[in-house]
Each structure stands twice: as structure tokens, then as C-alpha cells.
């Protein structure tokens, strides 16, 4: 019984939150990796682009709420994802047309494009802050829990409760859905194959008649979908605050590089690697060991490897270790 209690404890406090957070990171990381692989630059505006999509979703959610439209027990924000994705794609294409395409045509070095993306980051941040302000906004509505701790305890008779928030279930479900559709698209359709070819070897792809404009367009469309959905899911689970989204760019980059930049599947797993590392290293295992060990061996301290203050630092340290030993990422990405 104690053993099951310990497992439930771990599930409740580490595995489920890590899966949720990992899914949110994974979507962002695939976005980074796609832009890096196909458009060939590190996009420092990642966090703010996600923030832009989420901002549109938040605004439409507030509008819907004022009209009295709701989505039953699901959050209204899910209804607003399609228009938000459209707005995001429109914004990205606009930026691409007026900013990025010039350097792409000129074949500027990737560093220059990265610098330009810093400019885009500033502008996007300004637009977001001018439109919605820097404040914390909660836009979650609908049923909050799927499984409450008390219900679980009554059901199973265990000491430890298991809570599943509806946002967690939605996040994992939507992520799996979106990512599987995306992989199907990349691997099985002709357009997807042409995108992979373009990423692999640009000259050869152009020689075989692949239209670069179309590839870029499709890339931004997929990027828009991923960025908006990732951002909205994160906002639903925690809350929407522009500054936090900017900061989220850092673990997302870490996830993309750990997974091997340019490799979408690696980025997907990299998100979970980072999330699990952050949560497992900063979790206090005292109660867990109290269940497993006999009473006289019960630990006095919190049994916490690092305090939760160092959550971000953990993921960055993993990145540094990976860069040291496998510079192309765990799942081979583009070489350095």
C-alpha cells in the first residue's frame, strides 16, 4: 500500500505536471526547430510570437465571454484558437515579407537573421504591451478539475490524492493531436517531403523544382499553428503574462537544442527531457521516501536536490552538458 501511495505521490506532483509543461515546451521547441531547419536562423522572437498568438486568443475569449458564448465544460479559449492562429499566421507572413525575406533572398549569414529577429522581438513586445498591457491575465473558464484529490482518495482508499486538472488533460491531448498531424504531414505528404528536402539541401531541392516560396509559406503557417496553440495551452494552464512568455523562450531553446536543432522529433522529446529534469531535480522527495523506507530511516531534510528557485538553471545546465558531450543534440540534428 505504501508503495502505491508513493507512486501516486510522484505521479501527482512530478509526472503529470512535467508531462503538461513538457507538452507546452515541445510545441514551442518544434516551432524553433522548424524555423531553424528551413529558414535557417535562430528565432529570438519565439517567445513573443507565441505571446502574440495568445494575446489574440485572450482578447477574443474576453469578447466571447462578454457575448455569453461558452464551450460547455471546456474553456472558451479553445474556440478562439482558429481565429488566433489566423491572426498569428497573418502577422508572421507580414513580418516575413517586410523583414526576413530581404535577408533570405540576399543569403545573409544566419547571425544577421538572428539579429534581425531580435529587432522583431522588440517590435512584437511593444505591440503586445501597447495592446494588452504587461499585466497578468487569467482567461480560463469551464470545468476546472477532471479528477479531484478527494474523489480519488474515496475511490481507491489511498492516503495520497491524485488531481488531474482539465487544462493538463487538454494540453496533453491537444499536443499529441497537433504533433501527430504535423508528423504525418511532414513525412507522408508531398509538400512535407519537399519541406524536408529543402531543409536537408537547399540547392538540390531547388534543382528538383521545389518552389522555395511555397516551402517558406507552409513553414510559417505550421509555425503559426504551433506557436499559437503552444502559447494558449501555457496560458490556460498558468496565466497569460507577456514577460513570462519572453522568459519561456529560454527553456524552449534549450529543448530544441537538447533534442538536436533542426530535428522536429528531437525537439518534441527535448521538451519532455527539459520539463522532467526541471521538475524531478527540484522536487522535495521527503514524503516519497517516508512512504518507502522503514520508520527509523525516515529522512529529516526535505530531500530536495536544488531549491525550486533554480528551476530554469537546471534546464540550462542540461543544455550546457549536452553541448559539451553531444554538440548536435541527443537525437542527431544539424551539425555545428
Amino acid at each position, binding site marked *: 500500500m505504501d508503495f502505491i501511495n508513493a507512486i501516486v505521490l510522484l505521479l501527482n506532483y512530478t509526472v503529470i505536471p512535467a508531462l503538461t509543461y513538457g507538452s507546452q515546451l515541445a510545441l514551442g521547441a518544434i516551432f524553433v526547430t522548424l524555423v531553424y531547419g528551413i529558414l535557417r*536562423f*535562430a528565432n*529570438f522572437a519565439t517567445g513573443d510570437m507565441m505571446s502574440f498568438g495568445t494575446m489574440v486568443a485572450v482578447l477574443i475569449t474576453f469578447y466571447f465571454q462578454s457575448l455569453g458564448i461558452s464551450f460547455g465544460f471546456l474553456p472558451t479559449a479553445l474556440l478562439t484558437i482558429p481565429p488566433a492562429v489566423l491572426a498569428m499566421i497573418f502577422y508572421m507572413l507580414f513580418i516575413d515579407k517586410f*523583414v526576413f525575406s*530581404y535577408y533570405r533572398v540576399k543569403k545573409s*549569414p*544566419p*547571425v*544577421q537573421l*538572428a*539579429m*534581425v529577429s*531580435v*529587432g*522583431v*522581438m*522588440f*517590435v*512584437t*513586445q*511593444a*505591440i503586445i*504591451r*501597447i495592446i494588452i*498591457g*504587461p499585466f497578468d491575465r487569467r482567461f480560463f473558464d469551464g470545468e476546472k478539475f477532471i479528477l479531484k484529490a478527494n474523489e480519488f482518495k474515496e475511490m481507491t482508499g489511498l492516503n495520497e490524492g491524485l488531481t488531474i486538472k482539465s487544462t493538463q488533460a487538454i494540453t496533453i491531448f491537444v499536443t499529441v493531436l497537433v504533433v501527430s498531424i504535423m508528423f504525418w504531414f511532414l513525412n507522408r505528404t508531398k509538400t512535407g517531403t519537399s519541406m524536408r528536402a529543402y531543409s536537408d539541401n537547399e540547392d538540390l531541392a531547388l534543382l528538383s523544382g521545389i518552389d522555395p516560396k511555397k516551402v517558406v509559406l507552409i513553414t510559417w503557417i505550421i509555425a503559426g499553428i504551433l506557436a499559437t496553440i503552444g502559447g494558449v495551452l501555457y496560458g490556460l494552464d498558468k496565466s497569460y503574462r507577456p514577460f513570462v512568455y*519572453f522568459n519561456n523562450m*529560454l527553456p524552449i*531553446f*534549450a529543448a530544441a*537544442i537538447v533534442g538536436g*536543432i533542426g530535428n522536429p522529433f528531437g525537439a518534441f522529446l527535448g521538451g519532455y527531457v527539459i520539463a522532467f529534469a526541471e521538475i524531478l531535480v527540484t522536487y522535495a522527495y521527503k514524503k516519497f521516501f517516508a512512504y518507502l523506507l522503514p520508520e527509523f530511516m525516515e529522512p529529516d*531534510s526535505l530531500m530536495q536536490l536544488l*531549491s525550486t*528557485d*533554480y528551476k*530554469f*538553471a537546471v534546464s*540550462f*545546465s542540461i*543544455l*550546457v552538458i549536452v*553541448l*559539451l*558531450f553531444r*554538440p548536435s543534440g541527443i537525437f542527431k540534428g544539424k551539425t*555545428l
Partner: protein
Amino acid sequence: MMQHKNIIAAYSIMILLIIAVGVLQSWTIALTILNYCLISAVMTIGANIQWGYAGLINFGIMGYTALGGLAAVLVNVPPVKEAWKAGGSGMVVSLILIISGVYIIRTVLRKFENSKKRNYIVAAIIIIGFVIVRYISGPAIENIEAIDPAKTGFLGGLGLPIIFSWIVGGLFAAGIAFIVGKIALGLRADYLAIATLLIAEIIVSIIKHEDWLARGVKNVIGLKRPVPYEVDLQGSTWFIDLVEKFHSKKLDVITSLTERQDVLNQLVIDASSVYVKLCLAGLFLTVVIILLILTQKALYSPWGRKMRAIRDNEVAANAMGKNVVKEHLLIFILGSAIVGIAGAMMVTNDGLFTPGSYRPMRYTFVIWVMVIVGGTGNNFGAILGGFVVWFLWVEAAPIALFFINFFTAHLEETNAVKQHLIQSAAYFRFLLVGIGLLIIMRYRPKGLIPEKINIK
């Protein structure tokens, strides 16, 4: 010749702008802007050495700035004796353990050069060392932080004049840059950018959360200045006489004696803050000039030519027998050290250390915008960039407010859009800087004052 004229013209415009702020707004604001411009100029010199001379992207400016600030605290604050008694020995033992651990790892790395055992042994040493250090330092940290947590709760510093911290800050930053450079410099350009950005974030989070070191997010206030205090100036007769002489025309018009005294008091208060800021500006200007001379000398020395050769064609430079790895590490350390100096200067200027305020937006990306807007590879350009961008960064809000009022003049005061825009006037600085960067990158990719190499 053309180049010189451009530089002189650009700097004169900049100085005129600052004087305009002094006349239109107030001299205190103008001098505050000038001081920050000078500090930014030091940072841009540091970033420019790395990016302009050697083509290394360092997005970790924030981390080195924070290290400089930490140095200012550790040098200036008097030591907290009780804290040393309570936990000093534990911390010293931990430090010795960490240093010896590093040495053991180094010897292991040398002994087992090509074996798989190496990584496991190193990992085991790190894990065991981590547990031991935590076991020893844990109670020590608790004891230190328990001592008068509202005021101290940390080990304190050396109690020396803060000006020494400028050198110490540079050394701190250089030391960390050595480690970071060893880890990250082999990476390709954009990976290096990401890696340094994340490492800077680690450095700042350590400074933020290790309360025993510098109080963390509880901030350290009341650092002693290297220049006189306003209150002392207001009480000293020579200063009052000076102000009286300076404003004699204005004062002579006033006949009533009490009124004259009131006006004089107000003038003395204003003048004291201006005087303090001028003193600081003098100190900062000295640092900027010294660094400028040194970096200019370096740029036109054989060493500078070597760096440019490495930047422009790494492979060719390597083939010519230049040690690219070593030079990259050297320049990474030098640039970071200069940024560390700037960090210490900034804390000196503010008189307080607030680790929570170190954010990548303000301390990394804005500095990079300065370097790119000013002119990469050209020290005069980089410094000008520091001035221009910081000026815009500060004055963007008033400018934006003016334009908002101008364009919405026909709307009523209660109009929702107008009110919203006025409230968010402060965020137009992001827009201004971002669009400025995009325009410069597109139409003048080499910056306002581009790099020019005269071959003598």
C-alpha cells in the same frame, strides 16, 4: 577626413540633444541620462570588442553586468562579523572543497584521456562533492541568513572604497568568462548566442537566490559613493558660496532677505544633485576615455589585425598559424571583463544592488542594439550607439506622449483609445528601438559610423 567629420558631427548632435534635455526638462535628468550613456558606452566597448573585432556573439552581457554589481557589493559593504562567526568557517571549508574538487576533476581528465571510464568518474565526483558541500554549507547558510535578516543576513564585503570594485568587477567577469569560454566557444555563432544567453541566466539566478552572498532579491542598499553626498554639500559653506556666486545676477534682483534665502536654498539643493552627478560623470568619462584609447591602440596593433583576420576568415587565419581557439578565448575574456567594469560602475551610480532587475531585455538585447546601431568594429561608433540608443530608450516615453497627444488632439479626454495609449506610452520605447534596429540593419548594415580600416 570624411570619417572624422562624420564622427564629430554625430557626437556634437548627441551632446546638443543632451543639453536640450537639460534646458527643456531639467539638468538632473540630463546628467542622469549622460551618466547612463557613459556606462552604456563602456558596455558597448566590451560587446564591440567581442563582436566587432572577433565576430563572437556574446548574449551573456547581463550575466557579466550582474557580476560587476556583485563585486561592488562585496568590495564596499563592511564585513558582517557575527555572520562570519556563525557560518564563515563552513563557507570557507565548502569553498576549499569545491576548489579541490575542480582540481581532482582536472587531474582525472588528464590521466584518463581516452577512456569511457572518465565521464563516469567525473560524474561520480561531481555528485559526491555536491552532496558533501551541501551537507557542510547547508547549516552554515542557515546560520548566516538568520542573523538580522532584515538588515544583513549575509557575509558582507571588505569595506573598501567602491571604486576598487571596478577592477574587481572586471576580474570577476574575466574569471567566469574564462570558464564559459572554455565550455561554449567551440560552438557555431548562433549556438554560442543561445548558450551564452542561458549561462548568463544561470549566473543571475545564482546571485538572486544565494542570499548569504549578497542578500539575493532582498537587495543591498546604501552603498557608499566615491563622490560627496548631497546633504553634506548643502551644509558646507564653500558650496553655498559657489552657488551664490554662480547665480548672483538672479539673486541680486530679489530684495526681500527671507525670500532671497528661500530661493538660494532651493538653488543649493538643485545644484548639489547636479554637482554629484557631474562628479560621477567625470569618473565615468575617465574610464570611457582610458578604455577608448586602449581599444583603439589594440585595434590598430598587429594583434588587432590578427583578430580581424580571424574574424573574416577563420580557416585561412588558422592555416597561417594563428591560434584561433586561444585568441577567441582571450577576446571573450577581455570583452566580458570590460562589461564587468560597467556593471560595477552602474551599481556605483545607483548606490544599490538589485539582482531582480537584471533582465536580458534591458541588459543584453538593448546593449546589442547599441553596438549594431552605432557601428560594429568601430569603437567611436559603438560608443555613439550607446549614447543614441540609451537616449531614445529614456526619452521615448515623453516623445511618444507628445505624439499621442498631437494625433489624438481632436478626441475627447475620456476617449478610451486615447486613455489607453497614454497609459502605455512607456512601451513605445520597445517599438522605437526595435524599428530603429530593423531600419539600421536593412539600410545601413554597418551602423551609423561604419568600420573603416586604414592601412598605414
